[in-house]
């Protein structure tokens, strides 16, 4: 089904290209070439796929427990702030200490932020959709203050508020040698992302906690009857979700930018919702969906450069993918069959 969703979206997208007076086959050729046409393009696509995958896991783990985490974006930013703070606060520590510290700061910061929404849901019954959306806004403005006039602001050249750079020990190294792919930015964060995907699978399907989380997702009342406390699991799962997103933020800081700046990595947390839906909340599905969306992002740029077609087309296609998935969910719900509608409720 997900493959069909993508194909339908591409087909409708092709109609838009035609209307705009371009050749859709040429457009998609440029899109594919832009994403996978050279080793450098592939490495750039993977650079984008890393945070998308992690944020996708964040959304998916909450989905599996019956929660809708719209807050991956905010959790990612909090993770980036945590990692950026630790990384720049102790710039002289050796990597063997500083890198794990930076990683833990990012994950814990994201987890703590996610747990707030989980706690509000469990203790006060506040809908997590509302709280996580509001949390996204809160981080954006707190971040602006921190970097503009607050304790994390530092002089820099980019014309936007930014933190001071992290220490050399906090940097995730580039894993592709320059002789192999010149200028590749593909960093060791991809290894962390792969480990996180395995962890996601192991946690959900190979531990009793994972079983309990999924039980709550399939039916909170039934789970409670079976002696699982859904409320505690809600707090826990939102912390786990925040941890995945926080890791994404940490990787963006340590692997790519080496500092935090205002307007940092905008949008990954929202694309992640589409990634999780398209990937059917499964580890492999999320990974593939993240690579697909990363290919759209990277390929869209090259499509504009090389075929002269607005890169906004890929946003249309992404939206269509979501639309088709949502339509499918609605059709199933109307038909009264059990399906993803359950997970969304």
């Amino acid at each position, binding site marked *: 089904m997900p493959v069909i969703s993508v194909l339908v979206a591409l087909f409708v997208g092709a109609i838009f290209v035609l209307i705009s007076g371009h050749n859709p086959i040429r457009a998609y*050729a440029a899109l*594919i070439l832009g994403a996978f046409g050279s080793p450098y393009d592939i490495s750039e696509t993977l650079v984008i796929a890393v945070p998308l995958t992690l944020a996708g896991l964040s959304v998916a783990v909450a989905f599996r427990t019956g929660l809708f985490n719209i807050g991956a974006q905010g959790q990612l930013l909090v993770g980036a702030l945590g990692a950026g703070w630790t990384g720049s606060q102790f710039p002289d520590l050796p990597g063997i200490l500083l890198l794990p510290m930076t990683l833990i700061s990012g994950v814990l910061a994201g987890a703590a932020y996610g747990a707030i929404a989980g706690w509000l849901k469990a203790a006060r019954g506040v809908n997590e959709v509302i709280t996580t959306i509001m949390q996204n806004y809160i981080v954006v403005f707190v971040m602006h203050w921190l970097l503009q006039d607050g304790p994390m602001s530092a002089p*820099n*050249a*980019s014309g936007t508020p930014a933190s001071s750079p992290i220490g050399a020990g906090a940097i995730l190294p580039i894993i592709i040698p320059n002789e192999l792919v010149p200028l590749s930015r593909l960093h060791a964060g991809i290894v962390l992302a792969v480990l996180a995907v395995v962890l996601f699978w192991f946690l959900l399907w190979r531990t009793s906690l994972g079983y309990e989380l999924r039980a709550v997702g399939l039916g909170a009342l039934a789970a409670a009857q079976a002696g699982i406390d859904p409320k505690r699991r809600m707090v826990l799962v939102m912390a786990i979700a925040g941890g995945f997103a926080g890791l994404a933020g940490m990787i963006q800081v340590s692997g790519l930018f080496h500092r935090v700046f205002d307007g940092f990595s905008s*949008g990954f947390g929202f694309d992640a919702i589409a990634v999780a839906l398209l990937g059917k909340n499964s580890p492999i599905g999320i990974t593939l969906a993240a690579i697909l969306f990363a290919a759209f992002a990277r390929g869209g740029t090259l499509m*504009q450069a090389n075929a002269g077609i607005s890169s906004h087309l890929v946003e249309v296609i992404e939206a269509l993918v979501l639309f088709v998935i949502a339509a499918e969910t609605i059709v199933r719900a109307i038909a009264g069959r059990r399906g993803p509608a359950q997970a969304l409720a």
Partner: protein
Amino acid sequence: MKRFLVLAFIFSILFTTSCDALTGLTGSSLKIGLVTDVGGLNDKSFNALANTGRLDAAKDFGVQTSVIESKKQEDYVPNLTTFAQQNYDLVIGVGFLMTNSVWKVAKQFPNIKFAIIDGAPADDAGKTENLTNVANLFFKEQEAGYLVGVIAATMAKDKVGKATHNTVCSMGGIPIPPVDHYIAGYQDAIKTISPTTTILNGYSNDFVDQAKGKEIGLNHISKNCDILFQVAGGSGLGYIAAAKEKGVYAIGVDADQIDAAPGTIITSALKRVNKAVYNTVKAVKDKAYKAGDNFFSVANDGIGYGKTDAIVPANAKAAADQALADIKSGKITPKDTVQVKG
């Protein structure tokens, strides 16, 4: 099976045309790449103007040109790199937000020529470092400010139309050099031509938020401002909206904004980014490309003033044209430091 065949068919079409697209991109003419900042191509300001310059150059010089719109700030480096890697002959970054990104990429590609509008390459600490393969395209905004200042001063002095209080104002976004240059020139002209006119100035501390611009506009109007000059991008549109609401006059900036509020906007201070892009492409074509600081001013038609509303009297236009000629001949050198800050 049927589904598989359809898929195989689609992929085979895509694959064969991929190869076409690949070969279609290689040509012998010059290749020029433009990277917009996050404002995008429809900002009705300098990104749009830069793109106009690119299209004009493509038409006049038969060069191949492409554009990439940056969606986030972190796309600047990969987008600039994309063009550099394809061996473009000139890669242009639009706006001072790209100074650090251009510095990074230009250092990696010493054989590719770059240009940056409104800035110079700057290292990670924010220190300017001129590179031998980067042309810094600067504008003498104070000249444009001066020209519209002449019109405002003449109208205030002669109490033309609704300009009855002999007070003119301006609002900047953030007090950075390109903004303050405009305001400095504007105030210089007013002080020279109509010394009795009251001058007010303010900053919205924002380039996007219209509400902030409108607030300052309403405040200025309550203090009898008749003519409001905005130098604040999107935030400035709010300043113009205040003028429109209260029925006073406004002056646009960067691009010709007269169509944004006909009857309210009397003219615009023009910074012809399109000219800068066009001329830089021409320089590359004529092998006259010059790295380091390049200035665009009245002298090379990089600065001017826009269309005027019918309310602007002939003597004000004549005075502005005279000022244009005098700046060109060097008789007038507009100041570039702001005299009235608040």
